[in-house]
């Protein structure tokens, strides 16, 4: 009996003592779009015998931004990856928990609408793309078959692409895309539904203003009537579906189109094709920046934070391994700016986010 008591004591004290031990592996989480790039950097850092390979979790941008803000201490992650910028609300959560962050932009990623090469190529304007997938639209479009009251918002009635514009393919609208936790989804909804459609297209712009939503934020919601299909945080799944179902389209990051360029074709959006050059040259309009957020309080506590950041600067250039993997590099001036931010570590404030 005594023996078992002693054993139990040793066992529990082992657990407690090890729990108090500081973590020596960098821990990251967040956007599944940043993940492939972060894991390349993590692996490169792991080659250095002085550091362990960082642990990179996925989960989506919101998980990254929330996770890094959850608090200070080694039980929380050190760096949050995100493919959409932090919002004021998310930063407020950080400040509430006493977390100080530095924002590092690492590159860009284009969001593409693509389909199988066997299907009809799509050449569409951003406004029309928004019109196809926004949950509610004004009721006064040709072919929508509803009342012609432009200030009334109805559930999106369009069934076929050709209902929107005769130049578009005569097939049913069916688009696979990421779920709400995804930064890709958030960026797409903001750039296409909100800015491209409700912010540009005359009828929707007027109707948005009429309902007191000048910025068109209400347009961000995607259709839920089975036309837009959430396919989970698994972009590869969408790619597979597109190869099987040639009449459907998918929304995902450029790197997946890049890897599958022999079977998939990207839709030409507002007269620009999603190519590496177009996204890098800022011609392709549906692209977003990729970020990671570094927690100040963990620098020096968890080994390898600074080195991890520095590792990015070695590979994020025009012909580094990251661009091979499909990330679009930043222009030189931006690279210089964020490289210096890695050493000066400016604290992210709400004012910065407005810029």
């Amino acid at each position, binding site marked *: 009996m005594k023996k078992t008591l002693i054993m139990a004591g040793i066992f529990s004290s082992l657990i407690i003592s090890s729990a108090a*031990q500081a973590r020596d592996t960098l821990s990251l989480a967040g956007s599944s779009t940043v993940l492939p790039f972060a894991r390349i950097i993590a692996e490169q850092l792991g080659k250095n015998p002085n550091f362990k390979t960082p642990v990179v979790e*996925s989960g989506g941008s919101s998980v990254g931004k929330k996770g890094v803000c959850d608090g200070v201490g080694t*039980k929380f992650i050190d760096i949050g990856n995100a493919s959409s910028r932090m919002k004021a609300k998310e930063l407020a959560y950080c400040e509430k928990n006493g977390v100080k962050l530095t924002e590092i932009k690492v590159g860009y990623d284009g969001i593409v609408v693509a389909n199988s090469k066997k299907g009809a190529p799509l050449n569409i304007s951003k406004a029309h793309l928004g019109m196809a997938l926004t949950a509610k639209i004004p009721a006064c479009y040709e072919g929508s078959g509803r009342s012609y009251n432009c200030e009334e918002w109805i559930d999106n009635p369009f069934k076929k692409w050709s209902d929107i514009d005769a130049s578009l393919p005569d097939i049913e609208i069916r688009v696979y895309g990421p779920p709400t936790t995804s930064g890709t989804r958030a960026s797409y909804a903001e750039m296409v539904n909100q800015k491209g459609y409700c912010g540009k297209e005359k009828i929707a712009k007027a109707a948005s203003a009429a309902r007191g939503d000048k910025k068109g934020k209400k347009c961000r919601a995607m259709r839920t009537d089975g036309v837009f299909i959430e396919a989970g945080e698994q972009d*590869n799944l969408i790619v597979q579906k597109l190869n099987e179902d040639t009449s459907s389209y998918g929304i995902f990051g450029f790197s997946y189109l890049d890897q599958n360029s022999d079977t998939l074709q990207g839709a030409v959006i507002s007269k620009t094709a999603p190519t590496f050059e177009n996204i890098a040259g800022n011609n392709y309009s549906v692209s977003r920046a990729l970020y990671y957020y570094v927690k100040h309080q963990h620098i020096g506590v968890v080994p390898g934070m600074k080195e991890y950041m520095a590792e990015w600067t070695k590979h994020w250039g025009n012909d580094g391994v990251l661009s091979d993997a499909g990330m679009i590099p930043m222009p030189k001036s931006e690279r210089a700016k964020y490289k210096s931010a890695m050493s000066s570590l400016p604290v992210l404030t709400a004012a910065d986010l407005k810029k």
Partner: protein
Amino acid sequence: MNKKRITPLEATNSVKKSIVKRRSKDNRLKLYGRIAIGLAVCFLLFLFYSIFTKGFPGFFQYYVTLDINFDRERIDPKGDLSDNSLFDGEASKIVNESLFSIIEPKGRKAKKQAKKIVSSGKDVRIAKMVKNDPSLFGTITKVKFALDDDIDSFLRGYIKRETPESERRVSDKVIGFVDKLNQDGRITYEFSDYILKGSASGNPEMAGIKGAFIGSMLTLSVCLLISFPLGVATAVYLEEIAKKNRITEFIEVNINNLAAVPSVVFGIMGLAIFISIFGMPRSIPLVGGMVLALMTLPTIIISSRAAIRAVPPSVRDAAYGIGASKLQVIFHHVIPLAMPGMLTGTIIGMAQALGETAPLLMIGMVAFIVDIPNSVMDPGTVLPVQIFMWADFAERMFIQKTSAAIIVLLGFLISMNALAVYLRKKLERRW
């Protein structure tokens, strides 16, 4: 109204008639059963067929053989074979030089493309070789290096020569280089030494399941160490010692409920208790094993209780009759006799735990982890998570690797279940 009496002959006839009907009903039932089983077998065969045809190529990959000049000055500049010294060395440059001497690329751009033909794990490979065998220094030895995943896909025929150059990931120039290597007979297709011995990697040609496999083993052993003793003890207490009253009934109902709780809930609980309150690190097999133990406990308790109940009371009575104490009855008779049932339940619970990813998501084990865990305190991941992650990676070669990993996981599961069957057959006793 009198019931009409029927003659024996009529009775035989009517029975004969009905017997045909009843038999055909019988046969139909049999047929339905066979169809059901046939369908299940078909699905199973289809699953196995698709996994094995896709997965077997995943165990193989293309290699290129190069002559490497093991120059100690350059590979091991400090001369002490330490990790740091090898890291500072220029092994990859040596490999590139050897490659260039064969394919002779002209110009900076061609050289850059040529460099990518050989997997980026080349320097690690050389470092490993000289560490194992320092006598290699000073020799020129033929060494096999994995080819980059794009080249591998090209050689397998997934990337086709006919596709226009702009649409494929391998340029005409690189295809020319590969053809040259092929003519020299330097490219071979053989059993991959990465898939079983390598760890997670962003480069599919170097990715392997060792890290996840060891992570699975560590997690499962923690799980077993916690859940088996606890589960058996609970079952014994509830069946043999505790009085049957409201409280035990309440506990019983709750255990049964717990068995039906979705596994992700245990993960959330693990996050709240083990990580947030106890402050344990994320992503470690210790926490993963504890969470999975909570999940498997109900399974073990329920099956153990059933096993204990199946021990005939006469055994207990006989033991009491010759003056055994309660403890002696339980430990000398009831537990040994109930062991086969308990073990079967435990192994099935373990097999279930082996395939779980949902509870591990919350505690950070669904992650890209390269380093192979040495203990339950090092970050680690498990096999199903590895499969899940590979399935999502953009690189084409991961498709085969995923199926290969599924084969390994299936093998693991089948052997665990076979062990359960074997133990049951071996230890089972009939009364």
